[in-house]
């Protein structure tokens, strides 16, 4: 099918490795650049909070063993890479003895769910609006949607989130302001739980969808206009094909390709925005967990989460890259 050659797959997987390695290395280097011994400073801070003194010895042990701080740098580095690849992310400092990977795995499904649903909806809706924008047969009332959707493009996700909370949770009281599901509900495949999950997800997802829709619409409109000038559009028209077929199979089908590339490139930004949205909504995903880690100076948690974010983003991009030849028979070896 298409152009999915081994060469291409290998290149993409190679990029996947490189991206993860690069992110992980930066995460590794930063603490060692920060002044002072992080462990001692952290213990000092925790002592001041007088929370976990009895665990201090175990924590120090765990930390040192984890990072091998008594070992030379390159050994620490290799151990760190090895651990990360096995998803062995260490103990959480603030919630000892919880392990970071357990906390992350509990929160990750919420983040991935929110991300995937919002990104998918905004991509589909935004591109559809943009395509209709550029087509002369679109009725006028749809045409006017573009400026409306564009006005929200410049508002970052989390600001729109704040506004949505204020309007819908505080003033109108239609939707909840935080959390992922109501209290007193048992998790599982029962309808009350699922309904509550959906209800709680509406506002965060809406914040992301409305904010990013305009970006896709604008890009798609530009691409449709470019596609309209291509020669195959002339022949399509001369063949007497139905206008709807020309719109979808010739216009949209060719314009969507650069948009998919753009999606892969913007995933990093979308993930960052989702982190902030989770913080605003106290949505129990990794973003919110990250915020808590910041507040409690839980460095292992922060590093673990950021590693997972880098990993998740790189994996999503890899999936997109592997899907790309299936929609464009002329595979390109470079991204864009």
């Amino acid at each position, binding site marked *: 099918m298409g152009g999915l050659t081994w060469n291409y797959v290998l290149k993409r997987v190679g990029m996947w490795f490189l991206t993860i390695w690069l992110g992980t290395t930066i995460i590794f280097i930063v603490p060692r650049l920060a002044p002072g011994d992080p462990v001692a400073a952290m213990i000092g801070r925790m002592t001041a909070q007088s929370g976990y003194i009895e665990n201090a010895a175990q924590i120090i042990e765990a930390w040192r063993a984890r990072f091998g701080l008594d070992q030379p740098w390159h050994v620490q580095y290799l151990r760190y890479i090895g651990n990360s690849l096995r998803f062995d992310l260490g103990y959480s400092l603030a919630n000892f003895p919880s392990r970071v990977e357990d906390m992350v795995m509990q929160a990750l499904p919420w983040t991935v769910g929110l991300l995937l649903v919002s990104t998918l909806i905004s991509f589909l809706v935004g591109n559809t609006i943009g395509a209709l924008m550029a087509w002369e047969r679109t009725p006028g009332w749809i045409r006017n949607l573009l400026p409306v959707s564009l006005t929200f493009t410049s508002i970052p996700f989390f600001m729109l989130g704040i506004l949505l909370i204020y309007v819908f949770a505080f003033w109108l009281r239609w939707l909840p302001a935080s959390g992922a599901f109501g209290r007193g509900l048992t998790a599982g495949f029962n309808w009350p739980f699922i309904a509550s999950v959906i209800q709680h997800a509406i506002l965060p997802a809406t914040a992301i969808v409305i904010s990013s829709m305009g970006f896709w619409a604008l890009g798609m409109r530009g691409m449709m206009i470019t596609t309209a000038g*291509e*020669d*195959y559009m*002339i*022949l*399509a*028209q*001369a*063949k*007497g*094909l*139905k206008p709807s*077929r020309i719109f979808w*199979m*010739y216009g949209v*089908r*060719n314009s969507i*390709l650069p948009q998919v590339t753009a999606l892969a490139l913007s995933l990093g930004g979308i993930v960052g925005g989702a982190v902030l949205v989770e913080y605003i909504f106290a949505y129990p995903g990794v973003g919110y967990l990250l915020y808590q880690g910041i507040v409690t100076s839980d460095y292992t948690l922060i590093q673990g989460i950021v590693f997972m974010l880098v990993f998740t983003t790189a994996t999503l991009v890899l999936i997109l890259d592997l899907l790309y030849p299936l*929609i*464009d*028979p*002329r595979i390109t070896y470079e991204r864009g």
Partner: protein
Amino acid sequence: MSLKMEHRLGPAQQAANGREITLEVKNLKVYYSTPTGDVRAVDDVSFHVYKGEILGLVGESGCGKTTTAMAILRMVQPPGRIVSGQVLLDGVDLVKLNESQLRQVRWNTLALIPQGAMNSLNPVMRIHTQIAEAIVTHEGKQPKDKLKQRILDLLTMVGLPSRVYDMYPHELSGGMKQRVCIAMAIALHPSLIIADEPTSALDVVVQRVVGQTLLDVKKRLDVSMILIGHDMGLQAQLVDRIAVMYAGHMVEVAPVRAIFDEPLHPYTQLLIESIPSIKERKPLKLTEGLTHDLRNPPPGCIFQERCPKVMEVCRMERPQLRPIRPEHYVACYLYE
């Protein structure tokens, strides 16, 4: 041969000499509106195409050949518009048809082989899909195996191997793509095929193959063709009659031998003389004089500024296309 009976738009039209006429263009005017006035791309042009013949439409770049073709297809893009005139295909005036009627007429009775097939095929659709959609759009759903056989027959007719059936356009060479376009054009056995410079973008060897294919197709299907081009040498090998255009006016129409043996209009004479010859050495002939402004044509003959044989009467009134010999029309006061 699995091609069905020829699609005709109306009853057979007879000319005065008893031959059947497929296309008759009467007093066609196509203007482009610009902020500083109308550009007269096609200014009162009349000609006809007999059944089963290839009419060559020649002239230098910008003389209005492609605009005429687009006007026949009713695919003139704004800011161009058909001001007046008739385009009678099998007796039916195409100018008067509305959008949905046009869509039915297109490809069924009137097909296009576009200029630059490089980009005329949809890059994301396989060859057989693109040919099939032309058939299915106009003839309704077809049984799969019959359709496949039909497409394979078409490919064979234009000299393409059957593996082309499953390929994507980017896997084909320029000549092969052009022949795919020819196969598509004859798929519904139309009354008239317009070939807009089908060999311009190809090298000489491939030109010959494509030209030969066109001749084969014409012979086998008895389909009328308009072959647009500016390469006189190539036209000489392929067409039956030649129509010469200059700056939106038809200046001479004659059988191909007559044009080459005895060009009557001064412009045609210049064209013929400028063809490089292997046999004799010719000095490069340069014309004196300026071209006119297409927005503000001078009264009288359109060629007056560059004509080496211009007379007083030429500047006063526009000469009409008149038959000087049987089947040999000229618009020039030298012969009145």
